[in-house]
């Protein structure tokens, strides 16, 4: 297993942009080469820092999208129009540029094969990013953990990693369930509303199976899903959450 127990305080390092891959109209994946990258675990994030010519600095946290075994570090970033950092990362940044980052950070919201199963992943919008890293980890290691992913998006066009998730869902032991809150494809018979207790009751593994759950997305979705799972009998310690703040960007 890759170890990230780098002893020493966090320091900023330079990451070279190898590629910027558009994912949806508002998101892109930054493919980065980071010299001396110590490795990471699925679910961790990095802090990205931009420095203006006058010395002004802005810093944001972004989840790592790539699995630990991949050769390059991938961050998927959503552009928030009134943001300070994301409009630059998604729109201005080009291959050959460099950004400053530090990490990986956060050892709590992480998953490794053997952490527990069955595994429930609940994502809202770009909250899919760290959960996709977990799914990729599950696939790259050939682990057999049973996984269900419940993914809430506004429209089908807002689904990040759509093709990859479809491929993942064809693998043994992986199920992907979408809900589209704003508009649905023609003939859609699946979920067409925000995640609620009734949906969780249908999708989530029964508490008696001893599931482990990771929930990531906007604060309201995380609150609803986490409290719903605990009310359904999930061990609170087995429901790990990562809320997006209101001050992202």
């Amino acid at each position, binding site marked *: 297993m890759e*170890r990230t127990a780098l002893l020493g*305080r966090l320091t900023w390092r330079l990451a070279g942009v190898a590629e910027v891959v558009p994912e949806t109209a508002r998101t892109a994946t930054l493919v980065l080469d980071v010299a001396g990258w110590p490795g990471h675990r699925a679910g961790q*994030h990095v802090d990205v820092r931009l420095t203006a010519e006058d010395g002004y600095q802005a810093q944001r946290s972004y989840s790592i999208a790539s699995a630990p075994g991949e050769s390059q570090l991938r961050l998927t970033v959503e552009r928030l129009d009134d943001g300070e950092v994301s409009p630059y990362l998604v729109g201005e940044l080009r291959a050959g540029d460099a950004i400053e980052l530090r*990490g990986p*950070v*956060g*050892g709590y919201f992480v998953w490794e094969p053997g952490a527990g199963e069955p595994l429930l992943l609940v994502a809202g919008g770009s909250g899919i990013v760290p959960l996709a890293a977990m799914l990729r980890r599950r696939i790259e290691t050939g682990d057999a953990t049973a996984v269900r992913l419940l993914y809430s998006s506004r429209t089908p066009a807002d689904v990040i990693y759509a093709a990859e998730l479809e491929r993942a869902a064809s693998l043994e032991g992986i199920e992907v369930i979408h809900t589209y809150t704003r508009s649905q494809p023609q003939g859609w018979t699946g979920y067409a509303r925000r995640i609620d207790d009734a949906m969780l009751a249908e999708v989530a593994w029964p508490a008696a199976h001893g599931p482990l759950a990771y929930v990531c997305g906007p604060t309201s979705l995380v609150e609803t899903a986490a409290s719903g799972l605990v009310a359904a009998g999930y061990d609170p310690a087995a429901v790990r959450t990562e809320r997006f*703040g*209101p*001050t992202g960007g």
Partner: protein
Amino acid sequence: MDDASLRLDGNAAAGLLGELFAVDLTTARCCCAGCGAAEPLGAEAVYVSAPGTVMRCVHCDHALAVVVHGGGRYWLGVSGMAWLEIPEPASA
């Protein structure tokens, strides 16, 4: 906005804590001096909208710790914690 919409998870403070500590404190269990409940710091509530970063107990909302950074210094207030149980880092 109400408090709930500003709330983040303890893992959001991982970078800031990493500036100060060589071990990952988000996996350390923290005992609230207010109610006595112990949770990993990564599972506690964090608010970053104040002038500093405030960590609060998810059970009773007691302020566990406050970190303010500015003027070339850090102020770290930890009177809300009874103890921290810190996992020994795995050896490489």
